[in-house]
């Protein structure tokens, strides 16, 4: 059986795997990282989204052997110590979940989106999360949470409820000025 080396949430693993083992099954069944759920058989729902070498990927549509040598970040790798990642906190504060099944994938997709667009408009959030389905919330609170998380990540200033900031073109309250690579911040494994 092929052997794969992967780093998951900062921990290096070497595993012998069947070629047909999906990355999501490696994460859940072999490495015990059940924070990443499986919602479909077709690559549509996005609940299994992780960061694979820094970019969002649906871990149900990647073979474990394809991820050999890669760095994987799951929703379980976001918090540092007892502190939630700003995007996790924003989802909590905006009530951006009901059953929570879609939440890990939403959060990972949102963090990926911010790499290119640190202060996304509502439209940009909706477009950026189009590969992630939610059956509960109706998306409005999710969009607000992502914009709030974005501001928290880029400026450190967690300005009030999301969605009210308006004027995305002008840069949100703390948006445009962010130096360096704001979206990368906090994504790095502990």
């Amino acid at each position: 059986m092929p052997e794969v080396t992967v780093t998951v949430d900062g921990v290096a693993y070497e595993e012998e795997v069947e070629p047909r083992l999906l990355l999501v099954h490696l994460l859940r069944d072999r490495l015990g990282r059940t924070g990443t759920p499986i919602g479909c058989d077709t690559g549509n729902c996005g609940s299994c989204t992780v960061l694979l070498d820094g970019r969002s990927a649906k871990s149900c549509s990647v073979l474990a052997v394809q991820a050999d040598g890669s760095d994987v970040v799951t929703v379980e790798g976001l918090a540092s110590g007892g502190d939630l990642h700003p995007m996790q906190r924003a989802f909590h504060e905006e009530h951006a979940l009901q059953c929570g099944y879609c939440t890990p994938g939403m959060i990972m997709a949102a963090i990926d989106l911010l790499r290119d667009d640190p202060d996304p408009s509502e439209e940009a959030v909706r477009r950026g999360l189009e590969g992630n389905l939610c059956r509960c919330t109706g998306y409005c609170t999710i969009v607000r949470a992502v914009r709030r998380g974005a501001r928290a990540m880029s400026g450190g200033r967690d300005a009030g409820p999301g969605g009210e900031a308006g004027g995305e073109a002008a840069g949100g309250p703390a948006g445009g000025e962010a130096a360096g690579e704001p979206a990368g911040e906090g994504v790095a494994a502990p």
Partner: protein
Amino acid sequence: MIPAPFDYVRPASLDEACRVLGEAGDGDGDGEVKALAGGQSLLPLLRLRLAYPSVLVDLGRLEELRGVHDRGDHVFIGALTTHDEVLRSPVVREHAPLVALATATVADPAVRHRGTFGGSLAHADPAGDLPAVALALDCVLVTASGAGGREIPAAGFFTGYLETALEPGEVLTGVKVPKLGDGWGFHYEKFHRTAQAWAVVGVAAAVRIDAGAVAQARIGLTNMGPAPVRARAVETALRGVTPPAAGAGGGHDPVKDACAWADEGTSPPTDLHARPDYRRHLARVLTHRAVRAALP
């Protein structure tokens, strides 16, 4: 579901890939040897157990198949270049804007990070957005195999439902996208009912205006048959037509008349999204929209 078992090979070179694919590659059906690119079409098929390959040959590490190159009269897009890389390429944006416009409508960001340009063409899904673009632009598909390699014009590449001219053991290495030169405008018009979904119908349009009239038009249709088709009747009817000035409300629109030929010679499918007559209607309406938006 968990896919049925298969063997996995990750060749280190294109030669090795061709050899492995050629050795056991014996056509369609179960037990075949299959290339694996981004896996965004193949892995869902395996999970639904709609495909049972015996060996997967992972092309994913063949760096020589990746990247976008400006080659003078054409842009060469390596088969393994992901949709995301295509979208980020300044060369594509400048010299192959129709490819960029259509790629932006493919799936969602996570799928675009892994799915490849070549995989989309080799998969030849009638609802895929890129085959119609390749057809409209008269792209040339470049392959490698144990027997050497070929250059296959897009018009001869898409042979049927999920079928292409690729022989067993033949790898698509890249695509030549001709630069069309000055005076052209482009648009990809896709009709789908939910975010991230495949096209019910899509229209790829390239239009060149000369002295105020249409000098040339190239139209490719997505999901109007088992394989992508050119709307030749529209292309012919548009020649010499002077588009009405933008904002000129009402009145007779010769562009619209020409686009009414869009479904000529097509055989659109029936599925849960649409019946053939509705697809025909969509083809006419969307072609008009695509051509109007493409007018430079």
